[in-house]
């Protein structure tokens, strides 16, 4: 199954990269209230079991893909968001 992990800086965490992008967008004339920059990880899993894939992805996020102190994540499986 193809999965996507979206990692975001948590609200309130200083995101200097997002600020730089935000100010650059304004310089280009776009009206932007805020921009935040996260990370996207595409993972191809050798399983067709949805529940197993989700369980594995959550473990990957907790152990390596995110730092829970400063980042949150969302999962997508085969292009569709995974809810709760």
């Amino acid at each position: 199954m193809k999965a996507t992990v979206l990692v975001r800086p948590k609200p309130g965490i200083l995101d200097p990269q997002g600020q730089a992008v935000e100010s650059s967008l304004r310089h280009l004339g776009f009206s932007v209230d805020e921009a935040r920059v996260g990370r996207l990880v595409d993972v191809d899993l050798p399983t067709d079991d949805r529940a197993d894939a989700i369980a594995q992805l959550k473990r990957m996020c907790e152990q390596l893909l995110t730092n829970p102190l400063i980042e949150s994540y969302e999962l997508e499986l085969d292009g569709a968001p995974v809810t709760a």
Partner: protein
Amino acid sequence: MTDSALPRPVIPVVVFPGSNDDRDAQLALAGLGAVAPRVWHTEEVLPRGTSAVVLPGGFSYGDYLRCGAIARFSPVMRAVIAFAESGGLVLGICNGFQILTEARLLPGALRPNASLSFVCRDVALSVERTDTPFTSRCTEGETLTIPVKHGDGCWFADDELVAHLEANGQIALRYAAGESPNGAVGDVAGVIGEHGNVFGLMPHPEHAVDALLGSTDGGLILGSLVDAARSSAAAVV
């Protein structure tokens, strides 16, 4: 500087792919009276007689994903974590500090500098604690001059965690007022672990041990570690 009559504690310096301050750390520790073998990250055990461990600066694993996130899972880190959990002295410098926070041996996280610029210069530091194995050669409120060189040194913890660390006296080193090179919360430059045996700092004490290079204040930090390692080695024997 070295008193040859004193025992030389064994303080290995771990080398990850991308570490680049390991030789400076080794040289500085040797000059202060330690034996500091460099230990490759694939080793699963620490050298015999290890009485402290140093994780040096650099860009382990290219800083991919997050600084320190991948090095944390190196084989040698299992040994380092076990050593720390059994009370062993561990010092993380710059990338070493990032690795220790990722390994949850130290609180907080290190984020990109607020300026988004890589900063490389001397900074003034205020010593907040002198009763630790890493600062015992310093005096209370002393200002140290030690260089920083990092792009991801903005230490972060939420208000609740900061209050807890303040109350526990774990914030051992701060940038002097107006000196913060990175926007760290509370001007934090170095944090000590809950049990007092693990310390991480963004400044590089190993680059400040020779007057020729401007400051010897780094020798106070590394010298404190050598002293503590020597007494813990004596305790083991």
